Structure formats: structure tokens, C-alpha cells
């Protein structure tokens, strides 16, 4: 006669077990991690969403401050420290998802927007405007780089081309579809005038020589998808949001991982460096609600 009673007891016990497992999950969950492969870097979380930005993508270190293309927050902001974040322009201007940014020597900032399209400028006086829009073919703008000539090169993910935009807003094709670049997500010049182009659709990093010869320097690699590239100290730095990696590339040493990001920190997007070779990366964590992080990898070279 005791058997039915035991059976009745069983379901509440299963419910209790589920609660215990849930509690265990809450406590054991490490949420996110940074696995350091190159231990000459030390990671620190600089800031997170609640301090005036939402979900940064493109980053640029400039005069002790970080310029953020706050993709999730539809704004471009300047981050000075955890308590000082200033908005340079936002959705009132018509921007939707700022993607990447560059600045010239005079303090003018240019940025792309993959949702609103176009090339946008915030001049040194703080005036923001669209330099060239969708009407000129800039439909979904991604990578951006300042050419030695002073023009701005802009990659377009829908047109599969790289455009040259003059300071007066004239647009011409720099690399047409015949070059086969599917999505120029990020671009950067090295110190020899070569242009690196990251295509995160085809998972390729291209190198375009000053003689306009296009080479594939990184391709067909398992677990490799270049999101943003940055060049400093004779090294190409690469973030990989799909695989949660930060890597470096030199022709001599090939591709080497610096750190692996996991959990809530795995979607590593933008990258920049400061004058002391410290690396800054932006992380887009949860998309609902939108949460982002800024992480600094402080360089402590071995003595």
C-alpha cells in the first residue's frame, strides 16, 4: 500500500531537483571568460553598458580617449572613463547602427552605418552630417579607412564593392565587384601602404598592394572569421566575433591567437590600440536587452 504514496511523492521531488539544478546553474555559471594565450597581456573590464553606452562595435583610441561606434545605441560617443561618456551624435541625425570609424589628423571623425548606409562625418567643431548617402551607392557601409591621399575608403556589404569618397562627398568605385570581395567588413593600411581588407562573409583577409594587386593572406581556416582588423607595431590585429578570438598576424609568424573570449564575452567586435601597445576591444553581449562591454588588454612585456 505504500507504493502509490511513494509515487505521489516522486513528482514534487523531481520539481525540487529541478530547483536545485537551477540554483546550481545560477551559482556555477561563470557568465563569461577571457582565456589568455599570450600572457604578456592582462585583461581588465573597462566599462559596461550601464555607464552611458549600449553596444559598441568600432573603436578608435584617440588622445587618451576611446571613440565608440555604438551600434546598439545608434550613436557615436567618446569614452573618457567609466563616469565620462559623451555623445557626439545619435539617431536624431538619422543614423541607425554605426559600424566603424576613423579620424583624420585634424580631428574630423568619419563613420559607416550598415543599416542606414552612407558615410557620415563629425567635424572638428562637433558638427555632424552625412557626407555621402545611399543615393550615391553607399547602401550598407561597413569597413572604413583613411587613404594616404586623404580620401575615405568605404566597404559596402550589399554592393560587394569598396568605394572611394572624397572630402567633398564625391563617390567613385575603388574596388569593383570583379575583385570578388564579398563584404569588406573592416579595412586598415599597414606601414608600407598595403591595404588589409577583412571579409567576414567569405572568411578571408585580403592584402591589396599599392600596385593594386589583391592577395588572399588568410583564408580557408577552420574557426576563423575576421570581424575587425587593426594595424599597429608592424602587426595586424584581428577580432573574430563568431569564434570569440583575438589574434595577431605577421607575415613572419603567421596567425597567432592572443586571447579566447567565451560566454557573454564571446562576441568580440571592435579593436584599437593605444601608444603603449595596450589593446582595447568592444564586446556585444546580449542583444535583448542590449548589453556591451569594453575590455582593455594591458601589455606587460616580459623583461
Amino acid at each position, binding site marked *: 500500500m505504500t507504493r502509490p504514496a511513494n509515487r505521489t511523492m*516522486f513528482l514534487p521531488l523531481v520539481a525540487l531537483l529541478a530547483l536545485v539544478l537551477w540554483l546550481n546553474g545560477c551559482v*556555477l555559471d561563470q557568465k563569461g*571568460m577571457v*582565456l*589568455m594565450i599570450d600572457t604578456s597581456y592582462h*585583461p581588465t573590464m573597462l566599462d559596461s553598458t550601464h555607464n552611458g553606452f549600449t553596444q559598441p562595435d568600432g573603436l578608435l583610441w584617440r588622445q587618451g580617449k576611446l571613440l565608440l561606434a555604438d551600434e546598439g545605441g545608434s550613436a557615436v560617443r567618446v569614452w573618457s572613463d567609466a563616469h565620462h561618456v559623451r555623445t557626439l551624435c545619435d539617431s536624431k541625425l538619422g543614423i541607425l547602427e554605426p559600424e566603424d570609424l576613423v579620424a583624420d589628423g585634424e580631428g574630423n571623425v568619419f563613420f559607416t552605418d550598415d543599416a542606414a548606409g552612407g558615410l557620415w562625418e563629425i567635424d572638428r567643431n562637433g558638427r555632424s552630417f552625412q557626407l555621402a548617402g545611399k543615393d550615391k551607392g553607399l547602401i550598407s557601409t561597413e569597413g572604413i579607412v583613411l587613404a594616404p591621399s586623404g580620401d575615405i575608403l568605404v566597404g559596402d556589404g550589399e554592393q560587394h564593392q569598396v568605394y572611394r569618397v572624397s572630402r567633398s562627398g564625391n563617390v567613385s568605385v575603388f574596388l569593383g565587384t570583379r575583385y570578388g570581395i564579398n563584404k569588406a567588413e573592416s579595412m586598415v593600411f599597414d606601414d608600407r601602404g598595403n591595404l588589409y581588407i577583412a571579409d567576414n562573409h567569405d572568411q578571408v583577409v585580403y592584402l591589396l598592394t599599392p600596385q593594386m594587386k589583391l592577395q588572399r593572406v588568410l583564408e580557408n581556416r577552420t574557426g576563423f572569421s575576421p570581424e575587425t582588423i587593426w594595424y599597429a607595431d608592424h602587426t595586424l590585429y584581428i577580432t573574430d566575433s563568431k569564434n570569440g578570438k583575438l589574434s595577431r598576424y605577421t607575415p613572419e609568424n603567421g596567425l597567432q591567437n592572443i586571447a579566447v573570449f567565451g560566454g557573454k564575452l564571446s562576441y568580440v567586435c571592435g579593436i584599437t590600440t593605444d601608444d603603449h601597445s595596450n589593446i582595447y576591444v568592444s564586446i556585444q553581449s546580449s542583444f535583448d536587452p542590449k548589453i556591451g562591454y569594453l575590455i582593455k588588454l594591458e601589455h606587460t612585456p616580459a623583461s
Partner: protein
Amino acid sequence: MPNTPVIFALWSHLLERLVAVSNSIYEVCNRLAGRSELFDNLIALALDNTLVKAALLGGCFIAVWHGHQERSVVERNRRILVITLMASALVIATTKTLSTSIFLPRPFIESQTVFHMDGNRLVETPPLPYRVPLDAQSQKEYQRLQKGEVSQRDLGSFPSDHAGFYMTLAVGILLASRPLGWLALGWTSVVVLGSRIVTGQHSPLDIVAGSVIGIAILLALQLVFEKWFRPLMEPAIAWTFRHQAIATMLVFTAVFEAANTLQDLSPLIKITTAIAEHFLGGQR
């Protein structure tokens, strides 16, 4: 009404102790690795070789499916085994969902320089000691780890899906037949799951959690089906007697895939979906 944060804090404290105990057991077990190539290669077989990992369990399952003279006993056994197979699918869904939502890297990853999130800070985790097994695969994987070539599936180790899955099968067999059940349970505990602790794939806590989930779901389903769905089960079981050969074929296929933790099912579903999309897309 009890204060929820207090309960949570107490539970956290208790669990921290539990994690410490689990880590100590892991360290003791992992000390066995990296000393003998023979031992490590045997352990590696239990990790990757489906024959070593699953054949005994599958054999026990089929033996229980057929092995008794009395029809009433065989009917009962088949009922238990069919429910076990259903439970195993539910278990894998549960453990996979939990391991993707709970971020806890495998112990061998925690042996590296790792910083984890603590609120809005990154805190360095004290590295777990790790002796690398001497078999070729483990050595290769460790070299890959040191280069940062980490698979995302190595970042969610809690709970162990192998523990959940194999425990479900073994306990299911045990419910139907004591001798074969103990054999299956012993093999699962020592060979299949023990090897995962020795090689740093899982901590004992991952294994215990996976096992508890597996056993709980299995027992709950056995109870629910016996109590409410027996009239539905009986025609199905009767069908297996009328069509012994087809039933055996189906059970073999299900056990084969179940013993392989449904790993081959995912690519099969993907390619089937791709083919369906291709033809449907072509029709549009």
C-alpha cells in the same frame, strides 16, 4: 516566508564547498593521467571509441529486449526500455540546453590562464592542476588549447551530457534486468564517466549533475507512462511481438544512435533540411 536571497547565499556557500570537494576529487583522478602511455591510451579508448564506450551498453539493451522466456516479463522489459529510449532523448535535450546556458569551461581549460566575469570585473581564476594524458589525441588537443584553438563546446561542461545519457540507458536496463543492469551501470560509471574525470573533460560535479538529471527524467517518465499512458504503450509493445525483426531493427538503430549521444543525428537533420530547402526553393 523565507528570505530568498538568504537561501540563495546559503546555497551558494554550500555549492562552493561542493565545488571544492569536486575539484579535489578531480585532482586525485587526474593524477592518474600522464604517467603511463598504456593507461592513457586505454582511457582514450573509453573517450572516443564508440565500440568501447557504447557496445556493451547496446548489447545489454538488446539482450534485455529479447532475453526472457516469459512473455509477460518480456513485455514489461520492453515497456521499460521503450520509455528509457524516450527518456534519453529528453535527457540529451535537457543537458544540452543547460550546458549552453550555463557557462562553465571544462577542467582542462581551467588549467590555463583564465579570467572570468565577476559582476563588472574580470577576475583571474586560480588554475586547476592538469596532467595531460600521454595518448596522441590528448597531446594534440592540449597543443591546440595552448594555441587558443578552443571549441565552443568545451566551454559548457555542466552538466555532462554523457553522464545524463549513459546513466539513463544503464538505469533503464537495471530497471528491467538486475544482472545486466549492474554490468551496464558499472561500465558506465567506471569506464565511460570515470575516463572523463581522469582526462579533465569533466569535473565530478558535472558528472553527478548529468547523472541525476538522467535518472530523474527516466524515473519520472517511467512513473508517468505506467500511471497514465499504459493503454497507449500496450498496443505498441504487442506490435513488437508481431513484428520481431522490424522491431529489433528499429531498437538497434535507436540504441546505436542513443549510445552515440545522438551526435550523428544533427548532421543528418542538417543535410535533410538542406535537401528539402533546395527542392522547396526550386519550386518557388
